[in-house]
């Protein structure tokens, strides 16, 4: 198995994009989950559909929408341009693409964690003198921490594998926006690239297995920590 310097760049770029996408989504994902679990409001179903939409939509469609939004003629693009930010066909676009596609997975896991919290614990906290944000930080967050970890690792893994949306908004520029899946795509379309493609596939499998193992270990540890 050999990796070219370009492959290494692709791996590092993939990691950078996945980490950024996950970190960027975390606060928003936590807030969305909290909103959906603990607040009653009109249009909850609508928000639910909207949040889960990227899960079922073809990523290419998401990529295309993002392109329309942030492209030269989109209002998002105009806004970024006036701020002097180059966006489309940069790694930042890849981050946004990954974040959009992985967001439902993150929210889903955090929600599951929050739904398992007994409401009376929150009522107890409030009646003991904690304002809502205090309850959020000292009861909701620690008790849904497992969900946060699970959601983050799932989203991170999903981001590493993002292809469809990324290729549309960020393109496939080696050294700039070419992540592992895009590099594999390149190798697979060339007649001599099989060995190279396989090497990157091996890296991909290793990373995924590693993340899933870490995820399992962390949830085990949190579980034992809870029961002691």
């Amino acid at each position, binding site marked *: 198995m050999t990796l070219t310097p370009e492959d290494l760049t692709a791996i590092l770029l993939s990691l950078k994009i996945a980490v950024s996408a996950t970190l960027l989504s975390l606060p928003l994902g936590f807030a969305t989950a909290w909103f959906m679990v603990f607040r009653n409001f009109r249009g909850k179903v609508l928000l639910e559909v909207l949040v889960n939409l990227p899960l079922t939509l073809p990523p290419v469609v998401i990529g295309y929408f993002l392109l329309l939004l942030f492209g030269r003629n989109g209002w998002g693009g105009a806004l970024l341009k006036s701020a002097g930010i180059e966006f489309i066909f940069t790694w930042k676009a890849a981050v946004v693409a990954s974040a959009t596609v992985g967001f439902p997975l993150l929210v889903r896991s955090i929600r599951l964690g929050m739904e398992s919290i*007994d409401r*009376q*614990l929150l*009522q*107890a*906290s*409030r*009646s*003991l*003198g*904690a*304002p*809502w944000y*205090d309850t959020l930080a*000292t*009861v909701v967050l*620690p*008790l849904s921490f497992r969900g946060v970890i699970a959601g983050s690792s799932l989203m991170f893994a999903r981001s590493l594998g993002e292809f469809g949306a990324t290729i549309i908004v960020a393109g496939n520029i080696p050294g700039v926006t070419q992540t592992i899946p895009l590099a594999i795509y390149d190798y697979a379309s060339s007649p001599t690239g099989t060995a190279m493609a396989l090497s990157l596939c091996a890296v991909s499998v290793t990373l995924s297995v590693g993340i899933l193992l870490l995820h399992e270990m962390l949830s085990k540890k949190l579980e034992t920590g*809870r*029961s*002691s």
Partner: protein
Amino acid sequence: MNLHIDIKKRFSGFSLEMKSSLSGDRMGIFGASGSGKTTLVHMIAGLTAPDSGEIFLDDHCLFSTRSGCNLSPEQRRIAIVFQQAMLFPHLGVKANLLYGYRRCRTENRKIRPEALVEVLNLQQLMQRGVNRLSGGEKQRVALGRAVLANPRLLVMDEPLSALDDTLRYQIIPYLRSVSEEFGIPYLFISHSIPEMQLMAEQVLVVEHGKLAVISTPDALARSGMAQSPRGYLNLLRLKTPAFREGLFHYPWGSGALIISDGKEEGESLFELSSRDIILFKKNPEAISARNLLKCRIAEMFDSDGRKGVVLESGGSTLVAEIVPSAAKELEIAPGSAMFAAVKASAFRRLG
């Protein structure tokens, strides 16, 4: 403490409408499950907002649609003890106890944690994880946590119903002593008449989301006598027994009560059903029941076709239950003298 409530709340399939003023430091709310007790508690504590009306605690507006005030739960300083202890599972005993204390303003901190730990006998539990506590221990910690928040009012929402009988009566002295010791008024919610008798001075009876009546625990127990499977339960706090021939002789009234299941040290609480007392017009001289008490009839009352007879001896009273025909035959009337026979084994020790 004064609690003024005048509220309306409508849910799908249930509505609650209540208007009342309560005063006293040991108040009870009594009602069957589904009668709206917990909803009422939530509205007092600020966890649910009424549709309209007002709630005042000692001239302090907690909620009012007229003036627009609606204090958040943390501003109300009303601590709740739930049916399940609801300790924070990610915190230890000490952190749970201090949760409210740390959030209480310094000028409101009147109760010292050390003093509370002593009153509730929590020293042994301080370093333990909350999941390694028994049900009774958990409830004691939950009580301590609520008290240490230095609340204006302590709300106990059926704090005993998740515990078994033995534990229940072990916890009651703690509930009482904590509020007495630290001077915190409480609102005790329950559907058990004996618990009300032990905990409350005044009882708000709630039925189908409405206030049925304001009563005393004793009146409540009397009116429920015929319906309750065990009649009126006389609750007796007795101490300093003499132990003779395998039986405990407790001083009571102008004589003594002879009880088989007693305890030498400390004060014990006994329960005696009104149906376990037999009345005699004349002294029956030789009977197997160990207690034959000469009493005066202090009072009689009706309860759904049964007669309650309040027996008095040396300032202490017991309630016996008879059918009206027996009352007629024996010509029982207030002021007349009677003999009451009770088996030594009829007294049930609660704690």
